[in-house]
């Protein structure tokens, strides 16, 4: 059995943690994209100034949906994925 040089091991760990950081950043980045979109185009957010629109105008507000997708990814997909990634890296 051959020992991996310490510097190489350290570099591998650093590279791997970048992958975990990228996964952790996907949700917040998506959330931020939705926030920025809502600020740039507030007229896409019907709830801010409703003028008698029906159900679909209030239910489907793209910047809010983008934020929701980011939150759901960060809450339900990213934690388990990072856990599995770190486990596989330790093996």
């Amino acid at each position, binding site marked *: 059995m051959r020992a991996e040089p310490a510097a190489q091991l350290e570099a591998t760990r650093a590279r791997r943690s970048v992958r975990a950081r990228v*996964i952790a950043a996907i949700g917040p980045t998506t959330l931020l994209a939705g926030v920025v979109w809502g600020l740039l185009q507030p*007229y896409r957010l019907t709830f801010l100034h409703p*003028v008698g629109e*029906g159900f679909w105008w209030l239910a489907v507000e793209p910047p809010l949906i983008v934020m929701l997708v980011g939150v759901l990814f960060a809450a339900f997909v990213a934690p388990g*994925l990072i856990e599995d990634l770190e486990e*596989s890296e330790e093996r």
Partner: protein
Amino acid sequence: MQPLAEHVHWMFATGFLILALCLFAEAVVGTEVWRQRRWRAYLWPGALFLMGIFMWPVMIMFTNSTLHMLAHAAWAQVLLLAGGVELALAAGRLRNRYWHLCVALAFVVSGTASLIHEQNSWLFSRSAFLHHAIGWLMITAAVFPFLRTFRPRSIVVATGFAATFLVLAVFLYADRDVAEIFGHLSPVAGSPHR
């Protein structure tokens, strides 16, 4: 109570955004890690399949032209095919890697249907522009699922595949029933609303 076409486009944009995030995450961690939890292996193929199911009510409700009905039916069929095949591959029911080519087929059929069913020119309205752009995007991006069949571990191909869905989501979110594109809006397109 029927949603406007733009609402439907935005809902499907959300589906494609979810696909994009999942596929990008899979590209970053690798397929082996992504599939360590069973439910995750089914996540994006399931989303694709579900979008195929939801495309049928769209086909039934939006009957303003035969071309639209045919295009929506074509999308429903190829989404179901691609989603179903990817689900079967994830479950191990299908083993031959060439089944992944169904996604490339879905891209080409979807792009062609988008181009054929848009009868107006690029600068007629934003919707017309986006239908042309989406059509060419899907046809050219079919190279990613095609290459993914033969190079499943390529991070460039996997990222390109994910990016395609992200761009598609952006295009669909940008869609409005009647709106100008680069300052152009045909006078016969109608009046823009909210």
